């Protein structure tokens, strides 16, 4: 019996297999993709159980599966566009890895679009002006970004929470006018930007199977894996522990001998380097075309948005954030907006009902209030409120649909994508502050029985005290430490 229990997949594992099947099917636009993705997931699950039985590190089954799948992607996807999307996700994940590391040191930057831009421009300028191989250009870009990171990092050194945010805001804002300077036009191309569409950077041109996009994809993958391992080791090392010590309490960290300034500075420089590497890849991926208008404050804010939604407390969050940005924010919402404009109501109903669930079901107070009116028998007072809430949520969904339909006559829905994203960001920071990664970790520890318990608790009207205790957030979640004035 115990052997069977070990073999039973946990909720998270089942969810992962389903996700893999659907995701690969989407990327390959074929039913075979569904089978392939599902098979990869089930295979990893099987190997996981084998390793687990033998007391080996079973999680490697999953890691190797992800790596293998990523390596095979160029031959699975349905076209160059899909591959470019995946490569974009890769470069964003690199940038986000840097921001996660920065977050571990308790800092949040709204200026990293500038470092992405610096990486992209520095690499492009090196190739354009000095005609160096791309590897050299890349190293130059990294060195240059590190230097700028060091300079701004020093400025930000003594800053805390809000002041740091303002400093990085300045960086993001000022980057565009600098690129557009007349005096720099020779290098940056001023307002027109840099266009090297004709140049390719493919070393083995006689290998037919390695098309340009595939080459860039593999380069991104290689860098991503390397930087992931680096981040992982960094955060596990003494340095990583120093990061967390500084995040939680600077004074205490200094008291136990951590060099707070050095820690903050190195975290900032590391994140700048990661962003620059991402920017370098962005240059390759964007048809070697760069324009100052791409690196605005908006880009920085989108990065912070997916960092929070993905979860800034673990490396997983970087991948989830990149996935959210490319496949949910850009493609998913775009599709939803287009289909809605063509007259499909399903998405709006779903979205509105979800909103309704958050508003009604997520609040114990609503259920308690309803429970008081439904106090005729036990079942009715326990589950009646949830049923009413669900009905109300669907009602809100219908209302939401009608409202958007009304709005859509005057407004282009695709332009409202950031509105939806902003709303989700706000809901996320208020209800799931650890982001998607936090949710996944939470789910990862759960058995089916516990999952059932959680869902039941969500549906049940609870006594007041218990509900209050549950809403309290763990105190350790403070990525950006509070400013010094405290509130009672």
């Amino acid at each position, binding site marked *: 019996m115990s052997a069977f229990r070990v073999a039973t997949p946990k909720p998270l594992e089942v969810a992962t297999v389903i996700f893999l099947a659907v995701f690969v099917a989407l990327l390959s636009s074929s039913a075979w993709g569904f089978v392939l993705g599902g098979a990869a997931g089930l295979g990893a699950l099987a190997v996981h159980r084998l390793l687990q039985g033998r007391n080996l590190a079973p999680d490697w089954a999953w890691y190797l599966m992800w790596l293998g799948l990523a390596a095979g992607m160029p031959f699975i996807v349905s076209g160059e566009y899909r591959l470019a999307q995946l490569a974009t996700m890769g470069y964003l994940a690199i940038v986000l890895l840097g921001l996660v590391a920065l977050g571990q040191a308790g800092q949040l930057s709204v200026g990293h679009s500038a470092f992405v831009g610096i990486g992209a421009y520095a690499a492009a300028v090196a190739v354009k002006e000095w005609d160096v191989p791309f590897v050299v250009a890349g190293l130059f870009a990294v060195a240059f970004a590190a230097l700028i990171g060091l300079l701004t990092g020093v400025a930000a050194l003594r800053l805390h929470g809000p002041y740091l945010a303002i400093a990085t805001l300045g960086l993001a804002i000022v980057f565009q006018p600098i690129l557009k300077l007349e005096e720099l036009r020779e290098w940056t191309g001023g307002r027109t930007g840099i266009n090297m569409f004709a140049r390719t950077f493919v070393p083995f041109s006689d290998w037919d199977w390695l098309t340009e996009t595939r080459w860039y994809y593999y380069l991104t993958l290689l860098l991503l894996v390397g930087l992931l391992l680096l981040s992982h080791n960094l955060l596990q090392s003494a340095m990583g522990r120093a990061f967390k010590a500084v995040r939680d309490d600077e004074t205490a960290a200094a008291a136990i001998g951590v060099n707070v300034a050095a820690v903050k500075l190195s975290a900032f420089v590391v994140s700048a380097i990661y962003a620059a590497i991402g920017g370098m890849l962005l240059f390759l991926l964007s048809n070697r075309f760069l324009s100052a208008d791409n690196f605005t404050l908006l880009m920085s804010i989108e990065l912070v948005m997916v960092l929070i939604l993905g979860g800034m407390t673990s490396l997983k969050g970087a991948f989830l954030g990149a996935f959210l940005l490319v496949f949910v924010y850009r493609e998913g919402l775009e599709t939803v907006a287009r289909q809605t404009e063509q007259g499909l109501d399903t998405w709006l109903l779903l979205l509105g009902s979800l909103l309704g669930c958050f508003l009604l079901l997520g609040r114990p107070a609503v259920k308690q209030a309803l429970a008081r009116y439904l106090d005729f028998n036990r079942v009715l007072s326990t589950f009646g409120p949830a049923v009413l809430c669900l009905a109300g949520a669907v009602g809100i969904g219908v209302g939401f649909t009608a409202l958007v339909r009304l709005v859509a006559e005057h407004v282009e829905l695709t332009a409202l994508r950031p509105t939806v994203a902003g709303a989700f960001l706000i809901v996320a920071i208020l209800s799931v502050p650890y982001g998607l990664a936090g949710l996944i970790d939470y789910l990862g520890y759960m058995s089916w029985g516990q999952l059932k318990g959680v869902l039941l608790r969500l549906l049940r009207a609870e006594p007041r005290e218990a509900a209050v205790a549950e809403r309290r957030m763990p105190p350790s979640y403070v990525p950006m430490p509070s400013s010094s*004035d405290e509130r009672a």
Partner: protein
Amino acid sequence: MDQLAEQIITGLMSGTVYGLFALVLVLIFQSTNMLNFGQGEMATFSTYLGWALMVLVPYWPGFIVAAIVAFIIGAALQRGLIRLVEDKPPTSAFIVGLGLFLIFNSLSGAIFGPEPKSFEQPWTGSPFKLGDITIVRYNLFIFLVALVVMAVLTAFMRFTKLGIALRATAMDRAAAELMGIPTSRMLMLGWGLAAMLGAIAAMLVAPVIILHPGMMFFVLMFGFTAAVLGGLDSLPGAVVGGLVIGVLQNLVGVYLPDVVDALHLPFDIRDGNQYRDIALVVVLLLVLMFRPHGLFGKSTIERK
């Protein structure tokens, strides 16, 4: 010499708007402990409303109605949303501000279109001459309106019961509650006021920088710089910071090429105007480095 005087006067005049916007940011930071990155976009949105109104009605009614609508938006936001972050860590409030940024930025673009629009400019005509100094009429208009608004605000904050209670709430909310002040309503009032003043500042600069969804990016930055110059905790300090920024901007724009020439630096600058915003960020970074609590540096807040 006259050119210098003219630049300083022009700078002071545009500086009042930055001061006004910095005031807004400080008001929110003091009362809610939140750096509201969405403040500029909220103001942009209200400015679009004002623009739409001014198609139908003359300038002043449109201006006033848009300001009132901005007040309502701000107060409603506090009621519906900001209240929820009060007991959360400051990061949460900050992220909510970024969410507001995304929401209002895209709403402006989606509803009114991304293309730039010209905002009505009252009181046009030939510039004033004061000896050799020319003053553009609209600059004077901005200056006067901003001055009146600030005077009214100061009077409200200093001499009315509501204003004093508002300041008390911002200083120490728990103690204000013990005085019998309904602090949650005070915060609502504070947010409404802030949104209204932000909208007024934005409507004043809109004709100069041309109405478009990203128009407040730089003003937000200037506002924060001014607020930091003033120490982030003082309303008069924020206004002075704004004036400093306005003057600095103008001086850099005109005199930077000459300065570079005079110092025999190994490069040449053709047009100083490109450096107006860059210089400010440099100033911001320097101030943050050396005087994080502002130029008038009361170091009552402990620096960590």
